[in-house]
């Protein structure tokens, strides 16, 4: 069981299955466009997600301009504003964060980290990307239809989502729902692949308890997605029927502008339950990959094994499981049966325990470490600050009675941006700075990276930390403008203007990051084979960047977990997962073994096991 302790390093079970066959590309098109290579698909996913993320960034600027300087920009009216916030929210949560973590990092890293040549179902993997792209295009099309995109809020609550008081109720909402349904189809194909590959595609010696936490995080998130997205699928289809065919799944008797509508008998709360049955696991679909990745970044750049690996794995699984029984904490003031509050507040606060354990273990990993303040490490530290901050405000909102005054205020906006916006995005950046050399063979520019980190981290903290206090005053969210009130002081308007300026600056820093990615791709410093001296398997491929099939003639054999840093007695401060035990004491750079000729004994072992 205790596969992680150094005492059992070197144990390798016999191979159980044969090496996989590959779908080698035949032409430029099958290599870069209709590619079945998980690495190409990962890049395609990531580029699409970042592109659509830029749209969300511009939308956030526009909405902040309106909030910070109301009655200044005549080109933003109420309908525009609600369309901006809706599209910003949906793009960020689904089309950027989910797609980038799972379709991007999941695709790139899972096969490399588990020692597989590719995903288990490469063709399905390819389809997953193209269907995702279709979902993005359908969503973007809603900007160009009469009435524009939906302005129903990213939660899309009926009845208003499909009634005339809401912008985009003509076509925008239809395209939004259609796009979500298509996205779920794409995700299902990808998600099945990620889970199956991690379970079935692991190389010899890669036991479950030797997997890097990145894989644990992404795979658990994929399982959550496979179980949670169907609820959104059902809700989306039902609302489409309500809108297009006039059914009444979510529509009660409604008098709109003095006129009785044809609807009757449906339940608006039913949609909210379906939405949040998906929506809360969705938070962890974004958070768990970030948890996993940041664990690996911290360990690698602190040259220390992740603290409490087994506890970390169990915490990921516990959080994943609990995330399915907390959804109605988004509905404490929705008018659902108030006695639900007792149950959902309790489950929600229980989830804080495994989450806190993860935080402790991250900072304890830094204890007596050898901390290299590289860009990935800086972003990881930034993640811990923002995640702890956003996590503890979750304890306010999860504790039912505290939620009552704070729900639907700017406190909520500040909370979820800190915890599932800023924190995971800092991990994404850290991960890009960390794995960019593997993906391109070049390093990202350090100076631009430092600028990007400090402006993003401090700027985002300045945006969202004070925003909580607007919520305390009672400033409601989703307000086009505050207008005259008796309780909001003038100074709150000043704070709003300050937040807007900070948001514009932070947004600008992202453009520097994009420039850095493009610039370094062509002119960046060439990376060494393993620039961070990482012990995990993805850095041990024979070619950098890894080529199709990843491992050359023979698959790597894994002898230990991914966190053997600063092992006493080892020749160097890291021991790659695939370094044979007899070479651990060597002091020269370990060679990438996957590419070399297969040692005679090991090859025999493979063949025997296959008989």
């Amino acid at each position, binding site marked *: 069981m205790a596969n992680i*302790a150094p005492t059992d390093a070197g144990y390798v079970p016999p191979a159980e299955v044969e090496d996989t066959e590959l779908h080698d590309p035949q032409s430029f098109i099958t290599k870069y466009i209709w590619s079945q290579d998980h690495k190409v698909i990962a890049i395609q996913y990531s580029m699409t997600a970042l592109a659509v993320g830029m749209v969300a960034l511009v939308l956030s600027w526009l909405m902040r301009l309106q909030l910070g300087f109301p009655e200044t920009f005549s080109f933003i009216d109420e309908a525009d504003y609600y369309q901006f916030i809706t599209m910003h929210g949906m793009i960020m949560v689904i089309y950027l964060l989910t797609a980038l973590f799972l379709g991007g990092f999941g695709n790139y890293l899972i096969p490399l980290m588990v020692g597989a040549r590719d995903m288990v179902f490469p063709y399905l993997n390819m389809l997953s990307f193209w269907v995702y792209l279709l979902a993005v295009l359908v969503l973007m099309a809603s900007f160009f239809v009469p009435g524009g995109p939906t302005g129903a809020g990213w939660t899309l609550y009926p009845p208003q989502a499909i009634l005339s008081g809401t912008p985009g109720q003509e076509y925008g909402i239809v395209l939004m729902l259609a796009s979500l349904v298509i996205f779920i189809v794409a995700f299902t194909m990808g998600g099945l692949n990620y889970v199956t590959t991690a379970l079935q595609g692991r190389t010899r010696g890669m036991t479950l308890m030797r997997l890097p936490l990145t894989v644990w995080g992404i795979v658990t998130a994929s399982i959550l997605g496979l179980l949670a997205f169907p609820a959104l699928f059902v809700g989306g289809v039902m609302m489409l029927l309500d809108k297009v065919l006039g059914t009444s799944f979510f529509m009660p008797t409604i008098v709109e502008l003095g006129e009785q509508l044809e609807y009757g008998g449906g339940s608006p709360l039913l949609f909210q339950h379906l939405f949040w049955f998906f929506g809360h696991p969705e938070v962890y679909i974004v958070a768990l990959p970030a948890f996993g990745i940041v664990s690996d970044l911290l360990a690698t750049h602190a040259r220390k094994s992740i603290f409490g690996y087994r506890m970390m794995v169990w915490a990921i699984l516990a959080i994943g499981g609990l995330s399915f029984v907390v959804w109605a904490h988004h509905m404490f003031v929705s008018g659902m049966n108030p006695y639900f509050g007792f149950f959902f507040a309790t489950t929600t606060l229980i989830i804080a325990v495994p989450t806190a354990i993860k935080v402790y273990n991250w900072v304890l990993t830094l204890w007596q470490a*050898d901390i290299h303040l590289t860009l990935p490490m800086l972003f990881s530290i930034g993640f811990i600050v923002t995640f702890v901050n956003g996590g503890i405000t979750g304890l306010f909102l999860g504790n039912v009675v505290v939620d009552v005054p704070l729900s639907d205020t700017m406190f909520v906006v500040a909370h979820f941006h800190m915890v599932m916006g800023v924190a995971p995005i800092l991990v994404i950046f850290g991960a890009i700075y960390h794995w960019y050399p593997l993906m391109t063979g070049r390093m990202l520019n350090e100076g631009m990276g430092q600028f990007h980190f400090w402006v993003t981290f401090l700027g985002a903290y300045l945006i969202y930390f004070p925003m909580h206090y607007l919520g305390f005053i009672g400033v409601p969210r989703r307000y086009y403008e505050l207008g005259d009130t008796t309780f909001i002081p003038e100074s709150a308007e000043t704070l709003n203007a300050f937040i807007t300026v900070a948001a514009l600056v932070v947004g600008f820093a992202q453009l520097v990051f994009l420039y850095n990615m493009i610039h370094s791709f062509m002119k960046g410093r060439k990376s060494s084979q393993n620039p961070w001296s990482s012990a995990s398997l993805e850095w041990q491929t024979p070619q950098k960047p890894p080529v199709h099939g990843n491992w050359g003639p023979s698959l790597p054999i894994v002898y230990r977990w991914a966190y053997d840093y600063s092992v006493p007695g080892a020749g160097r401060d890291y021991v790659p997962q695939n370094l044979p035990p007899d070479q651990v004491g060597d002091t020269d750079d370990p060679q990438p073994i996957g590419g070399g000729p297969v040692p005679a004994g090991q090859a025999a072992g493979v063949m025997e096991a296959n008989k």
Partner: protein
Amino acid sequence: MVVAVILILIVVGSVVFHFMSPWWWTPIASNWGYIDDTIIITFWITGTVFVAVILFMAYCVLKFQHKEGRRATYEPENKKLEWWLTGLTAIGVAGMLAPGLFVWNQYVSVPEDADVVEVLGQQWQWSYRYPGEDGVLGTSDARLIDSDNPFGVNPNDPNGQDDILVEGDDLHLPIDRPVKMLLRSIDVLHDFYVPQFRAKMDLVPGAVTFFWLTPTRTGAFDILCAELCGTGHHIMRGTVIVDNAAEYDEWMSEQETFAELAARAKAEEKQQAGLGTPTGDGFEKKVSLVVNEDTAKPIQ
């Protein structure tokens, strides 16, 4: 060094901001001071954790930063420490949850003697209905709503005849009397939100939701809609005036009942239609269709 200092500054800055900034909750005007107390407990527990974790990290960054020849300690786990931290966290969580659930129990237990007031939300205005002298609201149904019966009160229900209807005017509540707010919407979701009351609840079309409070301070307070309800969401405002008993009774005596309103509407209709037009049967036909239906049941 720089990183550690910035981390410390973030902690110090956050704590100073918390205590020094002018932005804090509005002075309370209801019995829900318990909610504020729970927030304060939560602030202390979570604030301590935040400060401790970030300062610990700052210390590590300062103390264990890479130097030539430095090597990390190899300590993959420490069961004892991990269980201690788990236990302490569980205690902290229980320390917030227990008062939270205790207060929630009060929030969902409406006092027996509470007055009843109905809030009706629609895009984008608030209206109010009081039960009148009998203390009982008449039954209602969104299908009965028309220009003469904006609340959809069942005209055949004797309890509804003396209901007081308030449209386009302020909500009045008497001070120090518990009141159960029954919430109805006739179109989309809304949320009845008065920051000084702390309490809020969504209005859900097709259902009647509720919360209760006891106003503890006289004055006029803003009512806002706190659930996105379309382009006019931000202008869906109202005012609630908390009166002392005498002012409240005086205001109440000036209001019109449902029966008075209906009679006036009928009279106007007669006047406009002239002689020979059958009167009033639009009303009765609709009622006969829905006589056994009561979609607007309170959730309890």
